[in-house]
């Protein structure tokens, strides 16, 4: 469960302080897949920095699972840029977060091997990141994120720079993973299709400091829902129309 309560956040510009969030509030229940859409500069990535504790300079309150654990034990974060460390082979890049958190190396490697096989990149585990394609790098970054097994995943436009097929494959992997593990996911995206295909709910943030301008549930009744079958659902176009009409331009 994530509770974002009355967040006010300013940032410094050459013209002085500018208000980014003005009393922003929303809640994400356990196991929900929430997508946040919005124009550039509306503060989507900043919001993640606040949730992960990387930026603590704000007013208001963010509560994560009653704040019983250190934030990093509950939340893992995946960015648009894969941020693989070029001096480490793929396998070490994958387990770096877990080793920092003191998890067992053997267990981390076992889990890595499972996901490397699942995403069909097992043969790359001893390669160095610069030998990998953009899609492969993003797959590695995804494994690095989900291997931590946290209850909350924050995904900051992780699919924007990769080819369509790989994008669908990664969306499907994350969707399945979240469903199986009852993981709470917040996905920041510019892609309306993507958001509708994977989410239970969509929030649109307006240009600063307007806050939330749309908050809708996505209810697509499909057996074995995945990003491809979701796109084929008869309701998909209806949701697209609603989101598109409210999307700030």
């Amino acid at each position, binding site marked *: 469960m994530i509770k974002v309560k009355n967040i006010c956040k300013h940032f410094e510009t050459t013209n002085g302080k500018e208000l980014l969030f003005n009393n922003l509030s929303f809640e994400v229940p356990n196991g929900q897949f929430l997508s946040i859409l919005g124009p550039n500069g509306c503060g989507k990535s900043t919001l993640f920095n606040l949730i992960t504790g*990387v930026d603590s300079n704000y007013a208001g309150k963010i509560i994560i699972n009653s704040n019983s654990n*250190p*934030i*990093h034990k509950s*939340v893992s*974060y995946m960015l648009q840029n894969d*941020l693989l460390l070029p*001096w480490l082979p793929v396998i070490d890049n994958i387990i770096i977060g877990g080793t*920092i958190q003191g998890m067992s190396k053997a267990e981390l490697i076992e889990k890595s091997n499972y996901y490397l096989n699942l995403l069909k990149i097992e043969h790359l585990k001893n390669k*160095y990141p610069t030998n990998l394609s953009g899609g492969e790098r993003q797959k590695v970054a995804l494994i690095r994120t989900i291997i931590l097994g946290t209850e909350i995943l924050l995904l900051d436009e992780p699919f924007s720079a990769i080819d369509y097929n790989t994008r669908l494959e990664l969306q499907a992997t994350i969707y399945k993973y979240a469903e199986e593990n009852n993981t709470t996911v917040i996905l920041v995206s510019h892609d309306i299709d993507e958001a509708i295909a994977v989410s239970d709910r969509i929030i649109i943030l307006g240009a600063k400091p307007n806050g939330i301008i749309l908050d809708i549930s996505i209810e697509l009744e499909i057996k074995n829902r995945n990003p491809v079958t979701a796109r084929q659902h008869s309701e998909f176009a209806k949701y697209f129309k609603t989101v598109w009409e409210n999307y700030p331009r």
Partner: protein
Amino acid sequence: MKQFKTYCLTSLPLIVFLLIWEFLVSPIGKNTFLFSKPSLILKSLKENTINLILPYDFLITGLETLLGFLLGNLIGILLGFGLWYSTKLAEISRPYIIAIGSVPVFALAPITIIWFGTGIFAKVMLATISTFTIALIQAYTGAKNADKNQIKLLKTFGANKNQIFFKIIIPSSLTWVLSSLKLNVSFALLGAFIGEFISAENGLGFRMIKASSLYNTSLLFSALLYFLILSFIFNYAINILEKKVLFWKEKSN
């Protein structure tokens, strides 16, 4: 075959230069006294190598350079990385670092000789002073230029400052550190040379000054050749170190 061709082409300008030198200087006797010529240099090189004068000087200068190089780089790199730990300390020490870096090593040579004597230690100190500032600035710049997003990522994993230092700062600064090592080969040689220039009884710098005062240009060039060999050895060692340390760049290629 292609490599052999490249070697030939690389050597060609040197061979042409040596031939011109040899045959232009020869007919006029006075010029030989001032400029020497390749055949005379070769003779001097052979004599002074067989009687072990130049090899001994080579070892002395090599030892001074090596110790100064290691000490200067070690202190500089450690301090440079240390400054990353404390932004306040970095701000306070900035003017002092600039001041130390802007003093020519030649200006420090007399006081170094007074403090550390005329033995090998004074030359080591001069080589240390010559290399220290560059190592410090490069290590600090490398640490400061580490990818902010990589650091942010590690913070989201709950990494503390030490973990960030060892997992991000050190590996990402190595390119900067290695380029400082390359630059510092010349500076360490210069420091040792200046020390020998001011006061010494052995070493290639001393030999060159002595040869110069006796107008023994052939010996001067012979010592210079040994100096070049020393520089090549250091650069070669740094290149090997670079390949070992930045192995991931090689693997990437």
